[in-house]
């Protein structure tokens, strides 16, 4: 008997695990990407005649807990109506029992791919600032992303910035303590499943203390230690700082300072990055909005809160910021001096 090649086996496996969209308004076109929890497909919404991205729970992941987590992810994204967060259109259960949600199809590329074609630091910083805005909006609505990294930031074809993959996000309702918040991470969408028993189950599904979630190089120290209860928005601030490190140096965050990797990185930019990436969360920016504000100052050649300039640096920054004016005034003075010492006077 002939054995099947790995390639053929893979193909068969893919066909076997393809979602069954019958009974829904979606028509499967092709797979877009594959993650640990779910697979994202390109599909057509037959009612509205448009293409959408549909995230479907992986076939192997048949546990109820993962289904609830997926619904929870959809709920989290749905509550965050912001231009920097991809909108969710629909959520439901497929004929094969798998949970799915449909969202806007983002046409563009991931930040890590995008910057390979973009040399301008200003453009990178603008994109980063937009990501800070989206994360700050999420924080204001009590949501912590917990897995921020360049691969989870998409740049659309019109230059729009979208923070994606809220699969491990933590909900922090306003006015609640951290302890309350971890208990509040429950689901309320799956129809007809709101019994006490179910709620207890949902609580049990949530990430528990000691669990490590996220991506190592972009994870805050407290997240790496698995101190889930201690995580707050400053953990995301750390990850944003790590992304800034990547944008400044083209390298994943490491133990060396950005200026040691690339001497062209300004002292102010390095200070902003290192402040966001402080080991102690108390030393970081208090919020993503504060970090975004410092990045805006960097973009406008203004002094940043993370770095104290000496007078020489202040003068140099002012001259740099007003270089056109400085050049014209210099030209004027040169002309005046020229006429002053001109031999034709």
């Amino acid at each position, binding site marked *: 008997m002939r054995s099947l090649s790995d390639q053929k086996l893979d193909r068969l496996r893919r066909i076997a695990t393809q979602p069954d969209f019958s009974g829904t308004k979606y028509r499967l076109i092709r797979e877009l990407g594959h993650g640990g929890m779910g697979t994202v497909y390109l599909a057509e919404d037959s009612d509205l005649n448009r293409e959408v991205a549909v995230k479907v729970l992986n076939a192997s992941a048949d546990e109820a807990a993962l289904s609830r987590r997926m619904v929870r992810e959809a709920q989290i994204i749905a509550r965050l109506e912001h231009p920097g967060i991809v909108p969710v259109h629909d959520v439901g259960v497929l004929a094969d029992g798998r949970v799915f949600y449909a969202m806007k199809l983002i046409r563009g590329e991931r930040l890590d791919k995008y910057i390979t074609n973009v040399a301008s630091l200003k453009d990178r910083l603008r994109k980063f600032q937009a990501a800070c805005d989206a994360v700050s909006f999420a924080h204001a609505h009590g949501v912590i992303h917990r897995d921020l990294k360049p691969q989870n930031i998409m740049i659309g074809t019109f230059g729009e910035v979208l923070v994606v993959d809220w699969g491990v996000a933590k909900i922090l309702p306003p006015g609640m303590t951290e302890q309350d918040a971890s208990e509040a991470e429950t689901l309320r969408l799956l129809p007809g499943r709101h019994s006490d028993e179910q709620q207890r189950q949902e609580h049990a599904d949530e990430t528990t203390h000691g669990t490590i979630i996220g991506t190592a190089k972009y994870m805050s120290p407290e997240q790496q230690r698995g101190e889930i209860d201690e995580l707050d928005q400053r953990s995301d601030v750390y990850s944003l700082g790590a992304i800034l490190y990547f944008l400044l140096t083209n390298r994943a965050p490491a133990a060396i300072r950005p200026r040691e990797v690339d001497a062209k990185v300004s002292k102010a930019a390095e200070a902003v990055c290192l402040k966001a990436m402080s080991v102690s969360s108390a030393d970081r920016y208090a919020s993503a909005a504060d970090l975004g504000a410092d990045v805006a100052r960097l973009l406008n050649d203004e002094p940043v809160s993370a770095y104290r300039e000496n007078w020489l640096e202040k003068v140099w920054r002012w001259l740099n910021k*007003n270089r*056109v004016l400085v050049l014209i005034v210099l*030209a*004027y003075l040169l*002309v005046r001096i020229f006429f*002053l010492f001109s031999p034709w*006077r």
Partner: protein
Amino acid sequence: MSKPLIGILVGAVLGAFDGLTAWFTPAVRDQLAGIVVSSTFKGIIAGIAIGFFAKKFHSLPLGLLFGLAIGALLAYLTARFAVGGYYFEIMLPGSLVGLIVGFATQKYGRTPVAAHP
């Protein structure tokens, strides 16, 4: 500060400074007061024109171009009436003053926000 006001202020200061440099030309030193007054006046006229232009057109290149043109035109008129025909010595710095005023109005002037009914 509004763009016309910045234009007037920068134009007046630079015009006065520009006039004062006549002190270095011994031939016209005795006319210094008149030169400074007329140069300041010229700067204010240029500042008003450039300021209102900047209010209408929010473009740095256009502002620079207009400033240069107005500065050159007013300096040309001044040179025409000046004794000795110092065209080059008056027009070149005068144009640069217009350029500076054009830059300042576009860069530092504030556009008033339209009131909503």
